[in-house]
């Protein structure tokens, strides 16, 4: 039995009006990977913020022991000084600085405020080697992919002589192979005695690497599972997270497929900056009424680029190809025209592209179809309110009022607002790009139910997703994309994860 490196005892944290953490106890043994799971809002992030000093000592109740000593962190610097480093979901790197500058930001190597760049560069080479990143230290961070940026973050933590590494959703924006690399790295750290806390919604990953799993629900510790002793399954974890058995992770749907509602033929798109790079290569794709069509592929396969180029050429250059609705060619050359033809694109990045966060729910829902609630350009408030409320009720957006600001909503509810916007606009061809990214199991189920509902109303739905189980669970037909090409098309009933991955892998070389 190894020693306990971190122990948090009876932590209670109260925000005005909400008890975010209620008497939570949590301990991590030395040299283990400890997963922390729970639905959004269960208190995972708050617990980690208490641990790292974001919520300073005194603003919570309870005690924290790190390596046997009681800690009273007043800020992040103090927690980092003892070797406790947290890596957030949104990376904290400066894009226009080089790798080496980022690595030692706030931890500059030198004396009297003068940086010893030779020392820094030689140290950085060692660190990069440890995390397996083969890039020159002078490379600008903005030129790296998300996966590599994550490695830079981890190397940065190593530079601070980390003893307990906390990763908040590290693989949320990584593709499968990059995720795999990252998990390997965690295993390697475990060998070297560095413990990690892994917060993740991806239960399959959690099961792959974790030695113990602590489940939080509604601000309280439900249980800690020991993966070395017991046989743990995903269903077992989900039961703990939601407090009930989720027998079906995907809701059932009566499939009634009608005519082809939308089709693109010979669709070609070039990268906006690199002129000879094709991001969509001779794409032919169709969707029928009442059908949910999935588009599978790795990060960078060109799914988002394809959908956005169809949606009013909002991405890419030199776009060629034809779009058809019910067999008739339509003009989708601007976003306004695409919307007028009933096409919607619900973005993968709801904060940056989907919502006006500082505005109320109401304004976010109505923006794409103000015409329906206005007369000669004058908005009729009561009509707008009552229509927006209808959608709030229909999609069960949990909010105090439709005037609540979008930024105060949880991820799942924000996603529902984005969907509501396009339902409000009454679109019948919906491109949904990663609609369940970063939201918890319960909210995912609700989103799936909404998608089913839309399909049963006869809309055509194109679902872009990196999560294969999700595609297999709710789609009728699946396209597989790789490097801008559609490399396979199959019925969902014939598809398996292995089959899809094989098509992807055969075409990535």
């Amino acid at each position, binding site marked *: 039995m190894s020693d306990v490196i971190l122990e948090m005892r009876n932590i209670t944290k109260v925000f005005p009006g909400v008890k975010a953490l209620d008497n939570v106890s949590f301990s991590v043994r030395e040299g283990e990977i400890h997963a922390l799971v729970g639905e959004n809002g269960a208190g995972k992030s708050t617990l980690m913020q208490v641990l790292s000093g974001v919520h300073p000592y005194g603003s919570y109740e309870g005690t924290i022991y790190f390596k046997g000593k009681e800690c009273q962190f007043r800020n992040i610097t103090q927690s980092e000084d003892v070797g406790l480093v947290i890596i957030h979901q949104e990376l904290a790197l400066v894009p226009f600085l080089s790798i080496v500058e980022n690595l030692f930001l706030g931890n500059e190597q030198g004396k009297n405020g003068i940086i010893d760049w030779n020392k820094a560069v030689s140290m950085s080479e060692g660190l990069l080697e440890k995390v397996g990143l083969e890039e020159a230290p002078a490379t600008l961070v903005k030129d790296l992919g998300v996966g590599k940026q994550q490695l830079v973050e981890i190397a940065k933590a190593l530079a601070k002589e980390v003893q307990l590494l906390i990763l908040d959703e590290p693989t949320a924006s990584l593709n499968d192979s990059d995720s795999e690399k990252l998990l390997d790295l965690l295993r390697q750290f475990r060998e070297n005695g560095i413990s990690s806390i892994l917060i993740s919604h991806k239960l399959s990953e959690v099961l792959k690497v974790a030695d113990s799993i602590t489940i939080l629900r509604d601000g309280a510790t439900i249980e800690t599972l020991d993966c070395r002793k017991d046989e743990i399954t995903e269903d077992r974890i989900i039961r703990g997270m939601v407090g009930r058995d989720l027998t079906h992770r995907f809701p059932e749907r009566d499939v009634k497929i009608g005519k082809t509602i939308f089709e693109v033929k010979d669709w070609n798109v070039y990268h906006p900056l690199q002129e000879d790079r094709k991001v969509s290569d001779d794409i032919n794709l169709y969707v029928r009424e009442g059908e949910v069509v999935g588009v599978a592929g790795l990060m960078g396969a060109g799914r988002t680029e394809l959908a956005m180029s169809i*949606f009013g050429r*909002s991405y890419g250059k030199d776009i060629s190809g034809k779009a058809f609705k019910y067999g008739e060619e339509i003009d989708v050359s601007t*976003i*306004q025209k695409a*919307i007028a033809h009933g096409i919607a*694109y619900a*973005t993968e990045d709801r904060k*940056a*592209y*989907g*919502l*006006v*966060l*500082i*505005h109320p729910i109401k*304004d976010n829902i*109505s*923006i*794409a179809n*103000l*015409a329906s609630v*206005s007369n000669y*350009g*004058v*908005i009729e*408030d*009561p009509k707008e*309110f*009552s229509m927006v409320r209808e959608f709030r009720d229909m999609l069960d957006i949990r909010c105090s009022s439709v005037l609540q600001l979008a930024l*105060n909503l949880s991820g799942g509810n924000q996603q529902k607002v984005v969907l509501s*916007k396009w339902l409000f*606009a009454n679109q019948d061809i919906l491109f949904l790009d990663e609609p369940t990214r970063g939201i918890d199991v319960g909210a995912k189920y609700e989103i799936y139910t909404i998608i089913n509902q839309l399909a049963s109303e006869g809309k055509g739905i194109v679902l872009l997703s990196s999560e294969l189980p999700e595609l297999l669970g709710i789609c009728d037909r699946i396209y597989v994309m790789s490097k801008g090409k559609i490399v396979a098309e199959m019925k969902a009933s014939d598809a398996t994860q292995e089959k899809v991955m094989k098509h992807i892998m055969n075409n990535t070389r």
Partner: protein
Amino acid sequence: MKTLLTFLRKNVRDYGILIALIVIIVFFQNTTNGILLRPINITNLVLQNSYIVIMACGMLLVIVAGGIDLSVGSVAAFIGAVAAVFMVRYNMHWFLTIVLSLILGGLIGAFQGYWISYAKIPAFIVTLAGMLIFRGLTLVMLQGEAVGPFAVPFQRLSSGFIPDFFNYDGFHVTTVLIGVIFSVLIVVIDLINRSKQKKYGFEVLPFYLMVVKNLLIVGAVLGLCWLMASYKGLPTVMIILFVLIILYTFVTSQTVIGRRIYAMGGNVKAAMLSGVNTERLYFLTFVNMGVLAALAGLIVAARLNVATPKAGDGFELDVIAAVFIGGASATGGIGKIIGAVVGAFMIGVMNNGMSIMGIGIDWQQAIKGIVLLLAVLFDVYSKKKIQ
């Protein structure tokens, strides 16, 4: 009582700035021994500071849309100069001059808006360039000298009063009548809105609070009109201001175009992907700003009865300060016309009050700067509290 408190707390941002204005008015009313609110001084105050209110309406849209316009002072001066040259050197009719000047203002706005919106050069840089360009062109236009005076009808644009149809000795009855009509309109519109809101199940102000609110507004309107009636009546400029304020309040709060400007300023990418033609809309906010800067330039020239190379110097700062004091967000997406107008009157009252007190221009600047900082500080603080 409890509802009153929660109401005030909820709306502290909306009313805070108004309360600050009242505090400042009371302060200067005291320190100037009552000169501030004398009818003749109110008239002066409005005439001297009308340009801030006019341009603040346009600047609010520009700032809400996510931009800034530093060129408005120079544009106002340039238009004043062009109008002066048209009328004095070429004997152009005053009305035609006004129309052409407003169109020219729109074209200048379009010129700058093109570079900002379509060529994607930051608004700060383009309008900084515009500030230099149009200041320079003002000098070229006037050949370094003051051009004036103007025909009387043109002067009336700024120094005129509305005519009195009743000829009651020493008292301007029409002014009071306008005040009464305006008051009735305010109350009726409020009542209609209230019943509409009730019908759709919205939370409305408790009845007694609504009565108090309307009494305060009507009292202020009638009081102002009574004061003005005892002097020469309502100045023409005040009518222009009222029309602009009502028009822009309506556009920003009730129209599709207004809503889209806010959405664009709040998140330009999200607005674009929701089908808003963001480039054109951004462009139009600058065209609108150009027209209003032109109007302000005409009014300033008319009041001074001369166009000078130094006219409009520093106007942009007063206008931008007014908008920020009024609670607009520097990053776009947030701000109200009524806030900007109250901000403009705060600057106006400070300009006027400090001048009466004999405070030099040096200290006036410093004090205005501190007030701007305090106002924004208050705004940041109250925003934090809401979250």
